[in-house]
């Protein structure tokens, strides 16, 4: 079976075949001897790839895997061939690539909103200030953009991951 993976902006096609007691994996013409063992924790695995052991924790959400490997975290989007073909056929209907939702990385209290709808902001410019654990934290623009929506108000308490505002990137 072929899988289309995407980590950050890199797409990698992984082909997996079961051979006797292990898996044969192909990437870009390179071949790997791979074995997989589930440890007793729900999300902990041991892989041996060409005799190299790798202990990882992995959680799945839809087509997105979150992998913890050697202290770092990675996000990997995955589709099998069939899904990838399906998706490419409807690609035209996707949402604008330039629209970007800014969510809060922490729960807290909105102290101040420093921008208004329609305002142009530079990359790194402060959008708003959140207080959490007695510290004020500034949320800044990831790219040059125009503010298209603001979904919170000053003094409002926000949950982790809540949408704060929407930006349209300037290309």
């Amino acid at each position: 079976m072929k899988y289309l993976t995407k980590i950050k902006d890199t797409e990698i096609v992984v082909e997996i075949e079961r051979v006797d007691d292990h898996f044969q994996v192909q990437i870009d013409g390179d071949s790997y001897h791979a074995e997989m063992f589930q440890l007793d924790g729900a999300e902990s695995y041991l892989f041996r790839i060409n005799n190299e052991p790798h202990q990882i924790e992995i959680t799945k959400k839809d087509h997105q895997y979150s992998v913890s490997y050697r202290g770092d975290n990675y996000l990997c989007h995955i589709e099998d061939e069939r899904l990838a073909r399906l998706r490419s056929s409807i690609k035209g209907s996707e949402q604008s690539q330039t629209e970007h939702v800014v969510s809060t990385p922490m729960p807290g209290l909105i102290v101040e909103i420093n921008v208004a709808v329609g305002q142009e902001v530079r990359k790194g410019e402060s959008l708003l200030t959140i207080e959490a654990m007695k510290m004020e934290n500034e949320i800044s623009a990831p790219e040059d953009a125009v503010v298209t929506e603001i979904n919170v108000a000053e003094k409002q308490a926000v949950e982790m991951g809540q949408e704060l505002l929407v930006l349209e990137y300037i290309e």
Partner: protein
Amino acid sequence: MIKKVLIANRGEIAVRIIRACKESGIRTVAIFSDADVTSLHVRMAEEAYHVGPAPSAESYLYIGRIIDVAKKSGTDAIHPGYGFLAENPVFAKEVKAAGVIFIGPEADTIELLGDKMAARKRMIDAGVPVVPGSETKVDDIESASRFAGEIGYPVLIKAAAGGGGKGMRIVRKSEEMTAALRMAQNEARSAFGDERIYIEKYLERPRHIEIQIMADTHGNVVHLGERECSIQRRHQKVIEETPSPVVDDELRQRMGETAVRAAKASNYVNAGTVEFLLDQQKNFYFLEVNTRLQVEHPVTELVTGIDLAKEQIRVANGEKLSFTQESIRWNGAALECRIYAEDPDSEFMPSIGKITEYREPSGPGVRVDSGLDHFGQVSIYYDPLISKLCTWGNDRDEAISRMRRALAEYRIQGVKTVIPFHLLVMNHEKFIAGDLSTHFIGEELAQMQEQNPMAEDTMKKIAIFCAMVEQQHQNQVQNIHSDRNDKVKSAWKMKGRQRIA
């Protein structure tokens, strides 16, 4: 004789103090908020009492209720840990008034040293060198700007009641003064209930060097050498070590003697830390005294062999210090990496959540002081410090190589941590060379992260992991009934199925 100690704190420092009490044969009383009903410090104590809802102001800062618990439980002494009420002179006073021993300095000493401006004056009088700065509080833009103009930018705005970087702002140009002053005052008010701030000359690329002191009630004041805490983010320490790569015996002795002088000038008793900035010409300037056991005390314990928390209890008991200045031997080198639940890729934003997988490193030269286990969670209400990972080595290189090994062994799932950041620092040539300053993270972090793009090889491995797990999911759905009777052909395959199916 202290036989029962109430620990007016939570998290790793509560656990640390409980351990010291258990080793001293002392019974422990924990307190907890609604957020900590089943936390590790509660599970480790012999007694535990509820003191209120999750917000600190209604629980861990609620002086009356904590003293009630002390009375009800028959506590002989209260250890405040660090943070919360540790440097609150009112608490120290009320504890004493309730007939309970406060494990720390006298309330007057805490009050004097907690007021940064009063402390500065006292130190100037005692001949302790200080950074040029405002000798009175500065609360309006005009006087702040005028004073900053006099000593010259950059300047540092600091909370008079401050500590831990809260209410602190660097101002590099006069245009930034208005915004910085407002934010510093806001933070100071919210953190300390006291919005007074003052202004200091900002030293370029200084090192943060502090001296551990210990004083008993018999007039003995001893210093236990320095700690270098230059690696800071958001003005908070993340990596500490002893000895400092730039402090030699002569400088240690001079700084140590100055710290002892500072302690004597404030009638200091029990454990404390005198913080200094060291400039590039190795001039040192008094910064402040932390009137408590510090987060980073274990590195001093690792090189001196002295258990500071147990020594605090001895001193509170009225005993003499178990060592003298002459008997202290500094042995090897020790490092501490604070393991925060924070995302180093997102400006060290706290990462809140349940711990789903937890395994600490151990083995030679490793010490972990943690406040949670695999049943734990990082709460929105408190500091996101999971643990302190310390290593000891015969020399700094060995301590660093052990730290790398230990960081790589540490497994924490459920929240993001600063472990990847610490690994970058431990492999950074300037860090390895001991070329540190308090600007290290600001100057080096972005570059470190850029120079450490995900290797192609790592990316391919992640792709393989995910593709294989995805295939397993698909097969499980497809084959759940069809291949039960397959014969397994080899031990390998069998093992794989036992585990995977």
